[in-house]
């Protein structure tokens, strides 16, 4: 049977031979790159619809396909993107007992007004019993200063927020019509949410409203809450002027209709956008003409401006398609206004975008960008080393070796995130400030940065990170001083017991520190903290849980002693949900139970302030206040480092006065990719048009 024998030996030989040839072929394949950029990411985008995506993989793809009305420039200053300009205004309405009083108040104000411009007052009108101020700057403080000149006290407006079990429809309008005594001055509703502003007696109105609504919509799930709002109607306005001549990638013109559509889609329950809450304070959005969009807010909320960096969707493609069809169509093949057009998405492999020749800022230099999905951290690195991807987010332990190698360019910056230990302030042992200060002195953060981050990080000084424009650099970090820690603990009544562990009133200073497994940095932190605290006589037990269990069973319920966690923050300064005393319930984000009247006031004020300098001042105060209170032991801000093959790209971007700036890829405040559309491969430099 020589034939069978040949096959038995021949098939394995053949397989081996073809594989050997294929290795040879792949190895000698031309290494010349196409004029494209290759970016790797561990995760796969969930969707390419920027309204619905919440993952960073999707954000990096949609970031080059779409534009928002506004954007952060390379220095993290807000500038126009699809909007060529924007202006801010506010209308503040005060209510008086009678028209005579309103006239009187206006006259008193007029007589005391010294500097209209300083208070941004543009004009005022008296309308019956109302005095309406039109201001060139939104916020509360200017109006309050003007109100102090009235001489006559205006009537206080109160606000009730409503969450109903089903859409409210016209229920609130009907209620207003049937209850003249409530003196309702503004009604707002959107789906299940509503809001009433009124002058009548708060308790009576609330009771009447509750009764009315439970008859209309049912009782279960009906929530009424008194909203902290200025005692007058403060309605800020943002007016966007849209850029001329912008076209969608399919050739249709971009107009205010698209903005309006995007806003409506965000508010549509069927779209289930994780960004919806950013727009819930919008009272109305209208488009007076093709180039203008006017947004009116229910009350001053300055972080809202940032929400207009949200990508705008094409109305002409989506208006007539039900949102539940989007995942099958638009979300897999989006059309935007950005520098690159969607080309193909091979699931679990890559998303490819190609150059948009009609991009409104000019033709990008690269032919395209390929976003590869490489789910394993090690192979991501291998892909970088074989130049299958051009960039790589280096692990801290590897930064040193790349830094020494001059074939690479490194981009390093403190990340917008920090790690911390949260003390559960509901537990008696952590309620004494001296104890929390002692803990901060006892833990050696420098050593932690050295061992955990290989030195690539800095000590955190509170709720903001150093790259943010409102960061307060004057906050001094706690220094490692075990002696001082012992002294503070002794002062608080904790004395060493028989086994060397501190005791007070018969209770040992022992607690459990929990974190999630699968995160090496957090488990290392826990171990180091355990050792540092042992040295001052505190016994720490470390427990680790799977992420979902950790969040659901412990963190969200507030059932823990201390927790190792981190916050990854955006560019925004509003941290109301993390620190306000109203956010300490189950499933809310102030899980350590921090309550401070002073912090509450600052958090509210920051939201209502639009002036950049004042925001910086208030944020600085807030950062200092919370750092002094030590509800967290703020540990460190890790440094993020990306590495690029030095010869891979250069940047050639439009300069300030029509010139072109040609430079190596540089780190900016907004990261290395701030000028992504102007990257080019030096070997294709001859093709550049400008």
């Amino acid at each position, binding site marked *: 049977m020589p034939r069978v024998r040949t096959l038995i030996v021949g098939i394995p030989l053949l397989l081996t031979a073809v*594989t050997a*040839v294929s290795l040879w072929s792949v190895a000698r394949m031309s290494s010349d790159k196409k004029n494209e950029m290759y970016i790797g990411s561990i995760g796969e985008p969930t969707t390419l619809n920027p309204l619905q995506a919440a993952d960073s993989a999707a954000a990096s793809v949609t970031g080059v396909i779409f534009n928002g009305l506004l954007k952060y420039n390379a220095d993290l200053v807000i500038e126009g993107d699809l909007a060529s300009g924007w202006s801010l205004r506010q209308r503040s309405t005060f209510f008086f007992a009678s028209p005579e009083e309103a006239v009187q108040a206006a006259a008193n104000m007029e007589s005391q007004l010294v500097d209209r411009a300083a208070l941004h007052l543009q004009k005022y009108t008296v309308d019956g019993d109302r005095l309406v101020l039109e201001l060139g700057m939104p916020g509360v403080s200017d109006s309050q200063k003007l109100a102090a000149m009235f001489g006559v006290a205006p009537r206080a407006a109160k606000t009730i927020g409503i969450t109903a079990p089903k859409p409210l429809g016209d229920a609130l309008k009907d209620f207003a019509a049937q209850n003249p005594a409530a003196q309702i001055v503004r009604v707002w509703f959107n789906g299940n949410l509503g809001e009433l502003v009124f002058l009548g007696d708060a308790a009576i109105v609330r009771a009447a409203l509750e009764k009315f609504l439970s008859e209309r919509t049912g009782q279960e799930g009906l929530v009424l809450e008194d909203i902290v709002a200025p005692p007058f109607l403060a309605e800020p306005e943002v007016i966007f002027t849209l850029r001329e001549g912008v076209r969608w990638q399919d050739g249709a013109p971009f107009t205010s209709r698209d903005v309006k559509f995007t806003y409506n889609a965000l508010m549509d329950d069927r779209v289930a*956008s994780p960004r919806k809450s950013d727009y819930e304070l919008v009272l109305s959005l209208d488009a007076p003409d093709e180039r203008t969009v006017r947004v009116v807010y229910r009350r001053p909320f300055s972080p809202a401006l940032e929400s207009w960096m949200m990508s705008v969707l094409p109305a002409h493609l989506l208006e007539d398609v039900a949102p539940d069809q989007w995942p099958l169509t638009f979300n897999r093949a989006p059309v935007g206004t950005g520098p690159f057009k969607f080309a193909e998405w091979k699931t679990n492999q890559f998303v490819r975008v190609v150059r948009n020749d009609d991009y409104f800022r000019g033709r990008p230099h690269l032919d395209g960008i*390929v976003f590869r999905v490489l789910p394993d951290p090690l192979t991501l690195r291998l892909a970088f080393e074989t130049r299958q991807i051009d960039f790589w987010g280096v692990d801290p332990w590897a930064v040193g070796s790349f830094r020494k190698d001059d074939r690479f360019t490194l981009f390093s910056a403190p990340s917008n995130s920090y790690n911390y230990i949260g003390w559960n302030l509901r537990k008696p042992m952590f309620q004494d400030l001296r104890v929390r200060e002692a803990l901060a002195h006892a833990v050696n953060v420098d050593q932690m940065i050295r061992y955990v981050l290989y030195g690539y990080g800095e000590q955190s000084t509170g709720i903001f990170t150093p790259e943010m424009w409102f960061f307060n650099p004057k906050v001094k970090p706690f220094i490692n001083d075990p002696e001082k820690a012992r002294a503070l603990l002794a002062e608080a009544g904790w004395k060493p017991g028989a086994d060397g562990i501190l005791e007070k009133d018969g209770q040992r200073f022992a607690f459990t520190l929990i974190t999630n497994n699968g995160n090496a940095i957090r488990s290392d932190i826990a171990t180091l903290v355990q050792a540092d605290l042992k040295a001052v006589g505190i016994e720490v037990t470390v427990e680790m849980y799977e992420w979902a269990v950790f969040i659901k069973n412990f963190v969200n319920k507030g059932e823990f002693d201390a927790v190792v966690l981190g916050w990854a923050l955006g560019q925004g300064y509003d941290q109301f949900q993390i620190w306000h005393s109203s956010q300490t319930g189950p499933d809310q984000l102030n899980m350590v139970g921090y309550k401070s009247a002073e912090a509450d006031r600052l958090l509210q004020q920051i939201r209502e302030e639009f002036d950049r300098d004042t925001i910086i001042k208030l944020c600085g105060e807030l950062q200092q206040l919370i750092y002094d209170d030590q509800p967290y032991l703020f540990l460190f801000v890790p440094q993020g480092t990306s590495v690029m093959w030095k010869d891979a790209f250069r940047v050639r971007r439009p300069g300030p006065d029509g010139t072109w700036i040609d430079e190596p890829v540089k780190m900016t405040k907004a990261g290395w990719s701030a000028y992504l559309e102007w990257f080019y491969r030096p070997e294709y430099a001859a093709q550049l048009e400008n």
Partner: protein
Amino acid sequence: MTAFIIRRLLVSVVLLFFISVISFFIITLTPGSPYPWGELNPKVSEEVKRVFREKFHLDRPLHEQYAFIMRDLFTGDLRSIKDERPVLQKIGERLPATLVLNLGALALSLSFGLLLGIYGAKHAGRPPDVITSIIAFIFIALPGFWVSYLVAIALVDWAAVPILGTHTIGVAFTDGAQVFLDRWWHVMMPASILAIGGIAVQSRFVRASMIETLREDYIRTARAKGLDENAVFYRHALRNSIRPLITGIGMLLPALISGAVIIENIFAYPGMGRLGYEAVLERDYPTLVALNFVTAALVLLGNLVADLLYAVVDPRVRLE
């Protein structure tokens, strides 16, 4: 024969029902939620979460959720929670890549397993057999992910060849042969690592079965007739020893479909294993249930086919 097939199919349907019930409830026992935007995102309001739960029936009791999933699975409307695409479409997308990868691994396991097994049997008890046995045991003991990393690092360090995905990206190929060889290379890397265990196991099966067969009376008779030793070995003994290979194929069928979780992840290979793995991490219940269901159905089918093949190759086996 027909009665046998019908009976087996009926049993399979019942089995499939229980498998789907158990897999659904085990999956939902896992803590965690399928929110695509993480648990601690301050921007996601309760309202949005509620709408999301309603959309995927997550607000219903578990048995109703199960009913919804099964209904949608059979009407073909079952959508993934992650990206809201039809689950069957997602599975269909991955199937070709997984089939190619596992057919490659199967070809390697069978061909090399047969070669090594026969070689060992032929030299039973002598040094060549000892050496192949040791190799087989080492292969069985090697953890696949570890070998994958070593191979990947070695190839990148020494040959600087791309190894990830199904093909090299960003290179202009000059001809069809290059495209073919590039694909072949990208499949053969993970496939040969997947095949390591298969080769070892197959070779042991073939070796044991050959040695057993060689002791049979009819082999002695054949030899006594004075038949050429090669004819005895390759015609008479081999044909009767390949039953274990069929068992092997039967066992490998589920792997053909379900993919290889770890290896697919390391080599960034877009197969079913990765789909399942990602669905677990994302608590994408519909995708998981559908995947389990499809895999279980194919396993049952594979077993049935293996049993039928037995009867075909070995007349001594009767299907009642």
